[in-house]
């Protein structure tokens, strides 16, 4: 078994491999934020922060925080050389207008039709969607980066989401500690699996119907 820290590392590392030189990318809160640590040094990625800039850089040294420079999660950050500030309307022109190559988000549920639900559990947990619905609808490619199950047993990857949706049929790729799944017209294809898990076990922990292709690979 892999522990929580290892899971998160596996997921973030694998998502980073999806990024290509020149991509404009928005990384959500949680596991997606950690993707930045695994981006190959030889490619140039521009990170978008929906509170109003591109060129998101690493956290500042302690004591060097700028009160007017946070990321969309409220943490102090820096802006890289060649970055640009913009207002919130301009920030969402970038998102909604298809100028964002990839958005990486966590989720509560995701399903084999590419539906995603990550903004509320009615009556229990209602944080709101923030910029997530715009990101899911607007980005060229939506990658869900999430642990495969809720607390080892409850499936997150469903036949059909039961929670209120954030976006309908928008998800392209799901990356978990167990594998990499692509949403296709035929259903959810397991493209890669983590050999630390047996295929039967992955199948059991996935409510959605998984298609095992002939060229199924091991996950790096």
């Amino acid at each position, binding site marked *: 078994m892999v522990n929580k820290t290892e899971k998160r590392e596996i997921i973030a590392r694998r998502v980073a491999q999806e990024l290509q030189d020149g991509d404009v990318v928005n990384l959500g809160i949680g596991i997606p934020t950690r993707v930045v640590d695994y981006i190959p040094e030889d490619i140039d990625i521009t990170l978008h922060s929906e509170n*109003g800039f591109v060129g998101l850089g690493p956290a500042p040294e302690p004591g060097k925080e700028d009160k*007017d420079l946070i990321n969309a999660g409220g943490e102090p950050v820096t802006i890289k050389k060649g970055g640009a500030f913009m*207002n*919130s309307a301009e*920030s969402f022109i970038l998102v*909604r207008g298809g100028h964002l190559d990839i958005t990486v988000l966590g989720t509560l549920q995701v399903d084999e039709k590419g539906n995603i639900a990550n903004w509320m559990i009615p009556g229990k947990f209602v944080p709101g969607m923030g910029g997530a619905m*715009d990101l899911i609808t607007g980005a060229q490619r939506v990658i869900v980066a999430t642990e495969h199950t809720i607390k080892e047993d409850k499936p997150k990857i469903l036949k059909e989401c039961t929670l209120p949706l954030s976006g*309908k049929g928008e998800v392209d790729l799901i990356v978990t500690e167990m594998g990499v799944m692509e949403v296709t017209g035929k259903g959810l294809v397991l493209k890669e699996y983590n050999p630390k898990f047996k295929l039967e076990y992955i199948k059991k922990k996935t409510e959605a119907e998984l298609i095992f292709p002939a060229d199924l690979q091991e996950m790096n």
Partner: protein
Amino acid sequence: MKESSFAEVVEQIEPGMTVMIGGFLAVGTPEKLITGMINKGIDNLTVIANETSYPDRGIGRLVVEKLVDKVIVSHIGTNPVSGKQMNNGELEVDLIPQGTLVERIRAGGAGLGGVLTPVGVGTKIAEGKEILQIKGEDYLLELPLRADVALLKAWKADRKGNLIYRKAARNFNPIMATAADKVLVEAEEIVEVGKIDPARVHTPGVYVDMVFAGGGDGE
């Protein structure tokens, strides 16, 4: 003369008003104006803002003081008090996707009849809303938002009300500046007319009604 005292500016805000407040998680939010509202107990407010920030910072402080009846925001998750009041029935919460929210405010300021956005199609957000099919795609008709007053936080203002926002503190501020009957500004610093390059102005002074110098710790 647009320059005013803090007291004169707070005087413009009345109980029951719809108030737009700039900022994103308390960055770019006029904290002194919020303190002024709390000290005067200006209540029954409807607040339009990105989110309700934190219990001890920004807009969240108005929620904690129970001065707010309703919020129109994209997120309340960073302020547990908002969620608690929502569950108690003390606070009405209208959750709106962030890009739709800012575009609805822009439409309110731009004299447009609404926003046609693909965001929210096929979700709970679309319930009760008109859907237009344009070139084979579905778009939600989202209506413009306006407020009685907009409360903004600028870095520098000149005496004509021209504003510059600092770094990521820009966010909703310049859009809200266009969409309220009265625009009230807390600037870190007020400078002479001519000290701000016309090419660097984010909000032209023609949008601003009153500005006061609130100090701050900018660069």
